[in-house]
């Protein structure tokens, strides 16, 4: 019996195990055993449903990306709070189409989620050929600037992380 047969998704197993312990907020032996049991059996049952996803090639860069996004969320929150409390007639909402260089569903999903999480922009739609991301911006003064920010700040690191 090979290891990959019994442990088809090692990362998912680890994640399930950690989430189980966090849910119960304990490291009691009983929960360790139960968590390990769930972490082993659920991936076994789900393995046939697995679709191929690009691998994270640069885990350190991914960690840096997470912290950068968290930082941006805080900064942008303050900016948007000022906009929301300010006069409404000054708002300049806009739709923007951002050309995508990324490929693969997972990287594009991550980019779209990042864009939605950083306040001031919500990703509305992806074109069928996966080449354009439609974004709604709450207040846009510089279209090219916004596109360039999204591409250099979020898309470029994602491209490097997944190597696609």
């Amino acid at each position, binding site marked *: 019996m090979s290891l990959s047969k019994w442990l088809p998704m090692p990362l998912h197993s680890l994640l399930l195990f950690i989430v189980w312990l966090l849910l119960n907020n304990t490291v009691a032996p009983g929960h360790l055993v139960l968590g390990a049991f769930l972490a082993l059996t659920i991936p076994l049952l789900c393995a046939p449903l697995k679709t191929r996803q690009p691998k994270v090639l640069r885990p350190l860069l991914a960690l840096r990306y997470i912290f950068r996004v968290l930082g941006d969320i805080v900064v942008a929150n303050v900016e*948007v709070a000022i906009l929301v409390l300010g006069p*409404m007639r000054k708002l300049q909402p*806009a739709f923007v189409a951002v050309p995508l260089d990324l490929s693969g569903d997972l990287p594009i999903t991550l980019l779209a989620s990042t864009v939605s999480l950083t306040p001031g922009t919500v*990703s509305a739609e992806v074109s069928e050929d996966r080449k354009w991301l439609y974004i709604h911006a709450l207040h846009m003064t510089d279209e090219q600037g916004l596109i360039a920010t999204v591409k250099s700040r979020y898309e470029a690191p994602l491209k490097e992380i997944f190597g696609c």
Partner: protein
Amino acid sequence: MSIWIEILVSVLLLIGGFFVLVGSIGLCRLPDIYTRLHAPTKATTVGMGAILIASMVMMSVEEGHLSVHELLITLFLLITAPITAHMLAKTALHHENRALKRTQSQQLMSNAREQLPPDANRSHE
């Protein structure tokens, strides 16, 4: 519980409360559905983040061991918030909800609805 912990928790709760309030005010004040979408994403990120950190500090001190299951709530919020925002935006586009008049580049809306690239001329209509 020492006074410093109490101050820390209160400040975090105030910050969290402020941002959640701003999110709700935004939901009321913003003029159309597309701009309103921006308000809930605000409230869940920094607002809920601060409230959950306050809860973590408070429970850890009260119970004497590290309380970390608040991290899970943050994780689930961070996963679900963009998806709900995206689904709402998609639905609004499909219902052809009008955007605010001065919204720039409104011609993109019909292409986005059909999931076409922005330069495609929609010959099938």
